[in-house]
């Protein structure tokens, strides 16, 4: 009961022809006492199915305009199809419906219609109900609907009745001839009589006819009409992306076409025959669209959605939510100016009172109309964050903090704090740049570093979310917290002494605990105000969409569907858990994968990513989804070579082609770069570096990840080109950037890169110090795999200092071998194998002839891995060592084989510069 009250038809039902048609259908469902004809339902399930259909009709929010009579009948028939195989009954009902509706031709007819409608509601004393009669419970969903309609009619003025009548004419006539003169429709009595006689006739003949009637007639009656309309629409709309709308969205029917063709077709007729649904349904529709927009950035055709929103705004100027949707649409299509305009317009009109934050705790005080403009500021801040205007975002958000404190809006305050956390963690703010220096210290007293501020804020917002029972915010805060601990060492905010007794919270255990807590959300959401009020609406929408699928695809029409629930496909089964909750829960898995990436467990990365993709793909936003794909592609590249990875990449590219600046593109460039480096195609590598550099925004502090990646790649390219000085300069400046923006994890890999550069340039001692520094970073943050590779580098450096250090190198190497062989990629493993062999060879006590497999096995393995990677330079080294060993053993055959392989790889490596094949290929 509470649910119905929440959905609230009351007072906001606008009587439209469609609603009258639904009322008529409800009369079939529950004919009431005085009904002249009892509807001969074949079975209980058939009857129930009609009820389910009606329920869905009154609650669905798949569009903002009501369906035409034609569509209603098509849907109605589809609802009946599975149950009773095209028998006369559905046909008869729909024809009866049409004739009854078109017979409502005078105000008095309408009056009588509603008078009769009263009869189907059960009388107050339910006890006296007879078995035969089917009454509608007045407090049931449909009962409330009927009562609201009756109420709406009884308060309708005569003018209103006249409008309703003329609308009825339009509604009934839309099927036959769109431009027909209205006079023709007003044939009344004989139509009614005909229909009755027809029904009687049918009842007599039903047995003959139900067998003989060809099946195809029904589908051919309606579907061609639809197709014709589509044809017309396609002609009309050259510039609109109708195909997309028809095909992909699933909201494919005459509605959208009708709307669009009305936009272009000289908008004068835009109201003719188009009626708005009830407010609640429209809001449901808008919420759903907002969800889609927020998840799949840019997946909706911008223009057509914008025009339909504009139309809706024209038809319902007081529904300010539409403006918000326009803002979202502009925002996610990167139209800064319009987004700004619509944001301000929305809040100017709504004063922030149309709750976007449904979980908001405080009801507005009655009588005092103050407005909640702090949410406007919050939105403004979020918008600037998205556009990368960090300074403006911060100003907006801090103003939001101030105003929500001023207005005691706790929930907005906690959302704002989270938004600031998000901003601070997204953009790099160097601790001494002073964007939020002493002036903006959030009342913390002493000025803090950005990192410390972030931590304090995170803790605060976590606590606030907990207190205010904002479950999804709580989950978000936990995720942010975990992400923070993953990348930062936590020290007490106001440390009293020098680094004394600070327990590092970067332990994977703690991070994982935090991440697990996020998933509790799934069980908590039900008890919280989190679930949106139109849960049932979403279910009904999905139900109707499934119906439409069965209408539009002829295969399902032919298919023998006997079960009601066959219409539900598993994939489109409506999920009872709201999308936003699922998204957060999914994000925890994605973050888990990321954390394992850092900690260095390849299998867990893969497992978590796969869990994410298989369980949360439906609710994920496209950027997150593409990130998950990237992880898998990277995994492929590391463990199975480039061929596999590029194949996977192609699949992913096809899926996410629409996204600008997507992670997929970055991944692709990285993949090409890596491959070019391995093959020795330095020109290509250089080009890719430049492209990566262009992708990042030029503003300082924005797109930091991308900038770091680009610089690392540049340094590596220079290293490969043996321009050691320049490589060292690039890496050095990158390190100082990382230091400035507190990017510790990146610092570790940059230090390792520096060590590598020094190693290659022959300055092993300098390299050692860098490698050791990197090692300490790795240990602090538990970056096990990176640590292993740092140890490997150290071993290599020792080795390069001379054979006397071989033993030390070997012991170091053995220490890290389990990690490398367990989780390392092909390249790392090959490097480890080769170094291992080198250690053995340097060892004076080692005699090859004793046990050649000790060195030959690793070399074979390394050569195999490197060939997969097409890493010519190192492969050549491996074969060179093999040849040396065979030579020492005196096996000429093996030696020749190895040396020819060596030659092959050397030639390939030297020729690589001229090979531009790959570049053209991609």
């Amino acid at each position, binding site marked *: 009961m509470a649910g119905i009250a929440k959905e609230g038809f009351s007072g906001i039902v606008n009587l439209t022809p469609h609603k009258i048609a639904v009322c008529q259908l409800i009369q079939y469902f529950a004919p009431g006492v005085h009904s002249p004809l009892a509807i001969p339902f074949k079975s209980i399930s058939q009857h129930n199915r009609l009820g389910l259909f009606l329920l869905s009709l009154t609650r669905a929010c798949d569009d903002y305009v009501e369906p035409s009579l034609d569509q209603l009948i098509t849907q109605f028939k589809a609802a009946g199809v599975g149950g009773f195989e095209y028998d006369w009954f559905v046909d008869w009902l729909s024809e009866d419906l049409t004739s009854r509706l078109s017979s409502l031709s005078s105000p008095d007819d309408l009056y009588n219609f509603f008078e009769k409608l009263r009869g189907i509601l059960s009388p107050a004393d339910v006890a006296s109900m007879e078995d035969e009669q089917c009454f509608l419970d007045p407090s049931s969903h449909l009962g409330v609907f009927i009562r609201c309609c009756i109420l709406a009619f009884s308060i309708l003025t005569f003018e209103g009745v006249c409008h309703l009548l003329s609308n009825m004419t339009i509604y009934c006539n839309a099927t036959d001839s769109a431009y027909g003169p209205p006079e023709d429709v007003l044939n009344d009595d004989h139509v009614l009589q005909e229909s009755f006689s027809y029904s009687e006739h049918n009842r007599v003949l039903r047995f003959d006819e139900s067998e003989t009637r060809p099946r195809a007639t029904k589908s051919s009656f309606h579907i061609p009409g639809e197709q014709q309309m589509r044809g017309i629409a396609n002609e009309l709309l050259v510039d609109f992306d109708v195909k997309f709308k028809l095909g992909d969205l699933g909201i494919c029917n005459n509605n959208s076409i009708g709307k669009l063709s009305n936009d272009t077709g000289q*908008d004068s007729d835009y109201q003719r025959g188009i009626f708005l649904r009830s407010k609640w349904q429209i809001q449901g529709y808008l919420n759903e669209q907002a969800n889609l927009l927020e998840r799949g950035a840019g997946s909706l055709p911008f223009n057509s959605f914008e025009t339909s929103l504009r139309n809706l705004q024209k038809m319902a100027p007081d529904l300010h939510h539409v403006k918000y949707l326009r803002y979202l649409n502009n925002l996610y299509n990167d139209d800064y100016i319009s987004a700004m305009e619509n944001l*301000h317009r929305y809040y*100017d009109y709504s004063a922030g009172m149309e709750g976007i934050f449904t979980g908001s705790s405080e009801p507005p005080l009655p009588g005092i109309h103050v407005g909640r403009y702090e949410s406007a500021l919050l939105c*403004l801040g979020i918008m600037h964050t998205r556009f990368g205007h960090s300074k403006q975002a911060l100003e907006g958000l801090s103003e939001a903090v101030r105003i929500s404190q001023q207005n005691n809006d706790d929930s907005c305050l906690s959302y704002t704090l989270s938004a600031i956390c998000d901003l601070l963690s997204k953009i790099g703010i160097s601790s001494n740049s002073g964007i939020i220096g002493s002036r903006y210290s959030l009342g913390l007293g002493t000025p803090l570093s950005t990192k410390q501020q972030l931590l304090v804020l995170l803790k605060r917002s976590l606590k606030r979310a907990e207190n205010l029972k904002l479950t999804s915010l709580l989950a978000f805060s936990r995720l942010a917290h975990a992400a923070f601990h993953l990348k930062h060492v936590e020290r007490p905010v106001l440390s009293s002494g020098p680094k004394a007794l600070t327990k590092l919270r970067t332990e994977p255990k703690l991070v994982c605990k935090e991440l697990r807590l996020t998933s509790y959300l799934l069980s908590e959401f039900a008890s919280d105000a989190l679930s949106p009020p139109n849960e049932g609406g979403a279910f009904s929408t999905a139900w109707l969409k499934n119906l439409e699928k069965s209408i539009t695809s002829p295969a399902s029409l032919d298919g023998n569907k006997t079960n009601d629930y066959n219409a539900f496909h598993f994939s489109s089964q409506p999920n009872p858990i709201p999308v936003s909750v699922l998204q957060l829960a999914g994000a925890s898995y994605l973050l888990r994968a990321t954390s394992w990436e850092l900690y260095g467990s390849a299998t867990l990365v893969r497992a978590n990513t796969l869990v994410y993709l298989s369980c949360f793909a439906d609710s994920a936003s496209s950027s997150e989804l593409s990130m998950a794909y990237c992880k898998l592609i990277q995994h492929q590249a590391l463990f199975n070579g480039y061929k596999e990875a590029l194949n996977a990449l192609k699949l992913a590219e096809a899926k996410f082609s629409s996204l600008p600046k997507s992670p997929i593109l970055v991944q692709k460039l990285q993949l090409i770069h890596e491959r070019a480096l391995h093959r020795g195609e330095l020109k290509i590598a250089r080009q890719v570096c430049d492209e990566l550099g262009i992708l990042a925004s030029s503003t300082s502090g924005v797109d930091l990840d991308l900038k770091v990646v680009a610089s690392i790649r540049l340094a590596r390219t220079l290293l490969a080109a043996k321009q050691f000085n320049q490589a060292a300069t690039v890496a050095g400046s990158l390190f100082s950037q990382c230091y400035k923006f507190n990017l510790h994890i990146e610092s570790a890999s940059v230090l390792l890169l520096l060590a590598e550069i020094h190693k290659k340039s022959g300055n092993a001692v300098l390299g050692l110090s860098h490698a050791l520094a990197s090692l300490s970073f790795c240990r602090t943050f538990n970056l096990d795999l990176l640590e292993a590779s740092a140890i490997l580098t150290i071993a290599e450096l020792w080795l390069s200092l001379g054979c006397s250090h071989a033993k030390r190198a070997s012991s170091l190497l053995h220490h890290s071998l389990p990690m490398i062989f367990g989780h390392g990629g092909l390249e790392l493993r090959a490097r480890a194998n080769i170094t291992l062999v080198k250690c053995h060879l340097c060892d004076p006590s080692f005699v090859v002839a004793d046990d050649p497999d000790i060195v030959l096995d690793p070399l074979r393995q390394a050569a195999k891995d490197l060939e997969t990677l097409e890493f010519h330079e190192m492969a050549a080294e491996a074969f060179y060592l093999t040849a040396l060993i065979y030579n020492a053993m005196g096996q000429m055959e093996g030696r020749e084989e190895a040396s020819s392989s060596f030659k092959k790889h050397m030639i390939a490596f030297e020729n690589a510069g001229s090979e531009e094949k790959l570049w053209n290929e991609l």
Partner: protein
Amino acid sequence: MGSKETYRAELRSSIRQLRDRCLYSAARWAGELLVGIEQDNPPSSVSASRGTPSSSARPPHQQDYLHRDGSSFRRSRSRPCPGSEGLSVTPAGGVSYITQDEIDDGDYYLLAKSYFDCKEYRRAAHVLRTQTSKKSIFLRCYALYLAGEKRKEEETIELEGPLGRSEVCNGELAHLERELCALRRSSAADPFTLYLYGIVLRDKGCTSLACTVLAESVNAYPWNWSAWSELQALCTTVDILTGLNLKNHWMKDFFLAGAYQELKMYNEALQKYEHLLGLFQFSDYIQAQIATAKYSLRDYDEAEIIFEELLRVDPYRIDSMDIYSNLLYAKESFSSLSSLAHRVFLTDKYRPESCCIIANYYSLKGLHEKSVIYFRRALKLNKKYLSAWTLMGHEYVEMKNTPAAIDAYRRAVDINPRDYRAWYGLGQTYEMMNMPFYALYYFRKSAFLQPSDARLWIAMGQCYESVPLQMLEEAIKCYARAAKCNDREGIALHQLAKLHSVLGRSEQAAYYYKKDLERMEEEDRQGPNMIEALLFLARHCKTEKKIEEAEMYCTRLLDYTGPEKETAKSILRGLRMPQSGFPSVEFDHLGSS
């Protein structure tokens, strides 16, 4: 002065033609213009037509005007008639139309016109359904259009649903458009039909085509002021205006002047009007427009004189009187405003302008609730009454009802996105709510639309300067802009000086303090700003070792009472000491602290 006679002939025949086609407001306008032409040798017919009480009041008015603005009057009179070269371009349409019209006035037409006059539009259209003359076709279409408009108005009220009033559109538009488009294609459309077609197109939202069609209409028949004013409303930017293909005619000058006024190019508009005044010397319309422009240029006194004169000549006038009331409001003349309100109330209380005037009066009296009631009434009468929305926003601000104020301003902005006052009001309201960062957007908008208004730049500067934002560099830029725009209150210079001194740029600060000082001297103002400037300059000059200057400022400071006097004394002492060879001791610090 033969050309004047030509004007008269043109106007007279056009009035007849317009009235014949039931284009009454255009006919009224032409009529007003006709009597506005100076009578050098009054023929009997003209004097008869000017038998209104106003005619007797003319001669003194003329003298008044001469007295007030004699130079421009004499100048324009001595000039050869400017419309003459334009006249040769336009066909002498006036006469030919008359002859054509007289012929095809059939009986049905007469009946239809009578129906039309009784506001039975559908009946009128029905009577003419078989008539094929151009005039009948026009009247039929026009009647249909008006019938549709009437129905639209009714439906707007009838269809108010829970989601607000949906924009009802005229049901006849589609049908009319088809017919009129066919007529235009077959070049069977006369200028009046084209005018109607233009309106229909505008209602359908095809503004560019509407512009073209209306331009065609006025090129073929320039005396239809309604067509001109529709065209003027469509010229929302200067580019559209210059892009129009218009033939030269004296009516074009009226159009251009009006368009300039709308585009806030007041000086250009004034020029045009003063030029036209040479021809139509007694035209109330031109006088009212001039007064409006002068009001917009904040030349209140002159505007008031003209308005007073207008009211004296035409005591039942309501047009443009809302501007007059705004003027009286700005000048805070309670009694004049109240008598104006009384007068328009007696004339016609159900005009939006009348309601607005009454609301202005209440607002001036500080009775904001009552004022809002009358603004609401004005808006009920005309939902698109721009200034009423804005003014109502001001009232709500006074009543501290910020959401309502924001709503009102926003509606004004949505009606006309170029209304910088409403944008400014929005910004102010948000600033009042302690949201300077949010308010900046609105101030930026308003300053973009009206870059020459110093107040807007100052408001923006104040936002940047406010405690939570503290973006002083940006604030300085804004104030500098304001200082360039003839800032009357002199806030900008003072703030610039202050901000520069806060940022430690004493050289610039001194420059602006000096300028501010000069300005205050010019306008003979006193006050704390003066003291502050003097004090700063005295200290600055002292540190710069400009002893004489510093002494001068200090002596000026001595004229004031209060702590500054003591500070000045101590500075003076500090100045004299090094001169007299004593070791320099910074006494002034002690004094000033």
